[in-house]
């Protein structure tokens, strides 16, 4: 058997497994979703959003919502692997560890995107303004990729710690900041109707950050799971 095919086979096996399990319980997505809605509502009352201030704040609120919900999902997704010893089961298989990393990352990415895809229309309805646009979807796609790339790596460390319930956000939020800044800036520009060319810088930055974070996580993941 060629090593390349077994790499992708293993990676997609992990994605398939996570999706099937999620389809059945819907625990992760429903928790992320309810949490996301709660965040939006809390912001509404905490900031007393009115239509004037709202347009400037929408991008920020959207990303805080995505990031918080994503954090919940990442923690859960790795805890499932740890609790029944499944991580050992994955590591016992004769596959490249990075196939496992990419499998988990892709699954987490899909979950985040699903949540975003539900939050966006709800937000649009709640505030009676259409915020959905192809450009914004592209920002969410790129932003959440960088987020899960580092998030999956750090979550696999956090679940192996004694303090795992509180550790992930503390580890993740300070290092993910560059992605968040670029994503918020790009989103705010799109929501304010700036032309794409004005936001080119932020898109470029997002792509660069995604590449950097993904490749670093890819290189060090071995050290996180190997004893």
């Amino acid at each position, binding site marked *: 058997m060629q090593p390349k095919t077994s790499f992708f086979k293993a990676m997609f096996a992990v994605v398939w497994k996570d999706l*099937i*399990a999620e389809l059945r319980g819907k625990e992760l997505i429903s928790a992320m979703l309810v949490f996301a809605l709660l965040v939006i509502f809390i912001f509404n009352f905490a900031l007393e959003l009115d239509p004037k201030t709202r347009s400037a704040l929408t991008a920020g609120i959207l990303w805080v919502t995505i990031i918080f919900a994503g954090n919940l999902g990442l923690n859960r997704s790795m805890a499932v692997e740890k609790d*029944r010893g499944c991580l*050992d*089961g994955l590591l016992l298989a*004769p596959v490249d560890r990075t196939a496992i990393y990419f499998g988990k990352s892709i699954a987490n990415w899909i979950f985040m995107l699903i949540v975003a895809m539900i939050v966006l229309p709800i937000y649009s309805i709640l505030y009676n303004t259409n915020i959905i646009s192809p450009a914004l979807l592209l920002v969410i796609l790129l932003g959440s990729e960088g987020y899960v790339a580092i998030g999956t790596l750090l979550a696999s460390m956090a679940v192996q710690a004694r303090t795992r319930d509180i550790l992930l956000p503390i580890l993740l939020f300070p290092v993910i900041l560059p992605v968040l800044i670029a994503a918020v800036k790009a989103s705010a520009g799109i929501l304010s109707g700036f032309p794409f060319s004005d936001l080119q810088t932020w898109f470029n930055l997002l792509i660069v950050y995604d590449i950097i974070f993904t490749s670093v996580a890819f290189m060090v993941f071995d050290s996180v799971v190997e004893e």
Partner: protein
Amino acid sequence: MITIIEVRNLIKRFGHKQVLRKLNFSVQQGEFVALLGSNGAGKTTLLRTLSSLSKPNYGEIQIAGYYLPGQSAQVRKKLGVVSHLPLLYGDLNAEENLKFYGRLYGLSDFQNHIEEILQLVGLLKRKKDLVRTFSRGMQQRLAIGRAIIHDPEVLLLDEPHTGLDQDAANMLDTLLQEIASRGRTVVMTSHDFPRVANLATRFDVLYKGIIHSSKFAKDLPQHGLLAYYQSIVDEIDAGGENQDAA
């Protein structure tokens, strides 16, 4: 006879604690070895190291012709591992769990194979049920099914009887005998002496990180496993005190 597991001078440390101290261990193909030892003797550590999950600090490990940790990918193909955790996904059903692991091991066209394994572990009728609804005994049987999905040459089991009632344990024993009769090598840790006495062909005593004694089943006196183990441990303890005194 072919030597399938060969361990020489294995040392494994956790912090300052040396759990395995220059341990030597070898297993011939087709043997059913029971590792006897109390808690903290290093049984789990030895199995984790053999299964490539944990890297040795020092020493040489050769399994089925491949070295650890250098050739761990090859070794993993030859190994099936059952730990005290089930290593199964509760939100997947029995069949999906096996399918998933089958894919990880690079198997293809495994539908019939999975049915055979489910038949073997007696869970064919429950194949569409979620694993989290299974009893501990059923989970353990499925865990063995998972471990043998790629038809490994060596099966490593860590305390497989833990938490099982009599019936479940009996079923597990029958299953293990079935696997052993197919010429597979089995290494199992346990402190359920009466049970392993009827299963294994060889008994090794692991005490304080070293294997001290090894005896074949035919050389043991009837129902003498516990007495054998106790005599070895007493001997070592006595020896240890003498050394301290000197």
